[in-house]
């Protein structure tokens, strides 16, 4: 019985929307793990990995020991029967499984305060969805489960505030899941100890950052293909190379901070830039925290943590980067969504656009977009206040930091009044008020529009600094994806302008017809394919879309777009 398999336990983790795939990849990379099922928001697996390894997972939100999982019976039976069956789940069926899971649970640090398994304080956290919710509201479900637990463990007590053990019950569509939390409620895996806890929800989630970095390295052309994504962290190839990674719109530097903590001992130079000096300062503080944190952790370790990335930060406009051509291996960035962070259009920008067909097409697009954005936004704000997977557009729950956070222009706005000189304090203060005025609902339209107009110039500049064979990972909001794709299409293939109107008009048509986004995506992608075969002029590099991963940021839909700068005439 005591062989390797007996040490294998069943777990599941909860994952941010769209990141399930990244999570299972991460688990498989760790080895000793079988991923058994990936469903919306959850990944089920069995693993014999040691506890500290499991707790070092970067993509999941929370980790649970799986006690029970079975097809849904709650609504397929009469209420009375269903309740009896549910009680059976705890009291009979999974009793031995519960014992076994509890034993493993004691290995996790969150159980350290527990001295005796017989005197355990616990709480039951329940969620039920859809139809089940009507018959079994979460509170009711919780009562039944808690009652059953107290039946079999009479010495246990309930404690809603500070329980030692949290029992999770999810009744969703077709499955009922019972699990034991392996990390405290207020300290999920996704919480990074080096980040200020009160601020983290206004930033891009570190889990999403991890996924972005994974994408950035995954198909990096010069690395052996069998080593994909973060897997190649330990590959010898990387140690022989030196990669330059750039986040041209780093904001508060979440992507860079995550990169430092993942890639700390690697031969990597991180460059970060933002248009807003204050954001760059926040980023540099965040990155410094990460480095200090890893330093403390490794004090006894002979491996020296590097402190080399701290000041590779500068203030610049992502449309006019102060870097050499072909000097960056990987670009990873979070493009402003135009909701909270948006760009002040360059005067030149409008004329640049007007002179091309792209503009008129884009403008046509915009006739539809504002309505869409407005709805999106008004939906998002109230819901966001409670959610924790919030990104950029969170309302302003942190009053003190308000001014700072708001000011993040994500490297997109040339602010004429502050361009040349070092801004003095009074100028700094004058900004938030100006910005706040623009926060008016009406002006959000302008935000989205100006972000759209900025995209061609942005892509053009990124293309200039990106090495051929390099990779670019951009996180954009779902409704800006089409604009990004057509900007990439337009800008990185200047010799072939005939295709763009085609493409855009199809897109517009599909928007008019209110077709699913998937359909739009297909239109764009097929257009790329056709065009690839048509290009036959001089050898040139263009951005080829490699992957797209839709993700959820709170209530907002976004897409991770991965492009490779490849030679098309190879």
């Amino acid at each position, binding site marked *: 019985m005591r062989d390797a398999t007996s040490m294998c336990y069943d777990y599941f983790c909860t994952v941010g929307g769209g990141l399930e795939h990244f999570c299972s990849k991460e688990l498989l990379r760790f080895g000793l793990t079988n991923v058994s099922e990936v469903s919306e928001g959850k990944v089920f697996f069995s693993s014999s990995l040691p506890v500290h390894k499991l707790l070092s997972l970067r993509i999941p939100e929370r980790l649970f020991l799986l006690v029970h999982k079975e097809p849904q019976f709650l609504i397929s039976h009469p209420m009375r029967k269903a309740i009896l069956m549910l009680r059976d789940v705890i009291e009979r069926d999974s009793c031995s499984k519960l014992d076994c899971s509890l034993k493993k649970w004691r290995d996790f640090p969150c159980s350290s305060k527990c001295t005796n398994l017989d005197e355990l304080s616990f709480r039951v956290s329940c969620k039920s969805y859809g139809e089940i919710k009507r018959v079994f509201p979460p509170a009711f479900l919780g009562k039944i489960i808690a009652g059953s637990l107290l039946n079999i463990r009479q010495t246990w007590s309930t404690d809603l505030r500070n329980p030692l053990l949290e029992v999770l019950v999810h009744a969703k569509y077709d499955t009922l899941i019972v699990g034991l939390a392996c990390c405290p409620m207020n300290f999920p895996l996704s919480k990074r100890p080096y980040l200020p806890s009160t601020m983290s929800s206004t930033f891009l989630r570190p889990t999403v950052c991890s996924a972005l970095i994974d994408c950035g390295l995954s198909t990096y052309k010069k690395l052996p293909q069998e080593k994909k994504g973060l897997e190649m962290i330990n590959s010898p190839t990387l140690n022989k190379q030196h990669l330059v990674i750039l986040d041209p719109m780093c904001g508060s530097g979440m992507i860079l901070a995550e990169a430092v903590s993942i890639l700390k001992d690697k031969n990597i130079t991180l460059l970060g830039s933002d248009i807003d000096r204050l954001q760059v300062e926040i980023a540099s503080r965040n990155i410094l925290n990460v480095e200090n944190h890893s330093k403390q952790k490794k004090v006894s370790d002979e491996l020296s943590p590097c402190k080399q990335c701290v000041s590779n930060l500068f203030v610049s406009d992502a449309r006019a980067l102060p*870097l050499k051509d072909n000097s960056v291996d990987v670009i990873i960035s979070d493009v402003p969504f135009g909701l909270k962070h948006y760009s002040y259009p360059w005067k030149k920008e409008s004329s640049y656009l007007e002179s091309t067909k792209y503009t008129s097409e884009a403008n046509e697009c915009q006739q539809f977009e504002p309505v869409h954005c407005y709805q999106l936004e008004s939906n998002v704000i109230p819901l966001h206040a409670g959610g924790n997977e919030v990104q950029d557009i969170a309302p302003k729950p942190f009053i003190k930091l308000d001014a700072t956070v708001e000011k993040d222009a994500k490297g997109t706005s040339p602010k004429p009044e502050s361009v040349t000189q070092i801004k003095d304090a009074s100028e700094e203060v004058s900004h938030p008020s100006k910005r706040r005025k623009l926060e008016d609902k009406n002006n959000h339209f302008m935000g989205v529009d100006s972000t759209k107009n900025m995209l061609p110039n942005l892509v053009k500049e990124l293309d200039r600094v990106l090495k051929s064979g390099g990779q670019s990972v951009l996180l954009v909001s779902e409704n800006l994806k089409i604009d990004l794709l057509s900007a990439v299409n337009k800008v990185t293939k200047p010799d072939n302008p005939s295709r763009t109107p085609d493409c855009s008009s199809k897109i517009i048509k599909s928007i008019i017809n209110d077709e699913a986004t998937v359909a739009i995506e297909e239109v764009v992608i097929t257009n790329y394919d056709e065009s690839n075969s048509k290009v036959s002029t001089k050898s040139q590099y263009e951005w080829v879309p490699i992957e797209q991963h839709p993700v959820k940021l709170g209530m907002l839909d976004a897409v991770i777009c991965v492009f490779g700068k490849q030679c098309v005439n190879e």
Partner: protein
Amino acid sequence: MKLLTHNMLTSKCLKGVNVGYPLGILAKDVKVSEVDFNPEFVSRIIPKLDWNVLWNAADSIGHSGELPKAVISDYENNQEFLKKAHHVLMEVEVINGELICPESGRKFPISDGIPNMLLNEDEV
């Protein structure tokens, strides 16, 4: 701003500037702080650097010290050389000063170690 960063910065984004490299440094405050030495990192980054630019930059702020004017052969195995390179690349930091475009003479301020490369709209 470390000299490693300086080695990568240009003013090419300015209108009418073709190369914009290397940027001149006018340092007011220079700080030297200790950074862990990672020989691997230094030896991998050397091929990516413009050594002349690095040397001149270090010289212009008075920190070229004993740094050789050219990359020596077999530098990967020369700890002493790598340490010197490490010192100049990582430990010397310009806190306040200016970066100067070699072609147009446009100045970019460096304050608290962060260079500000923003341009006026008419300069783009």
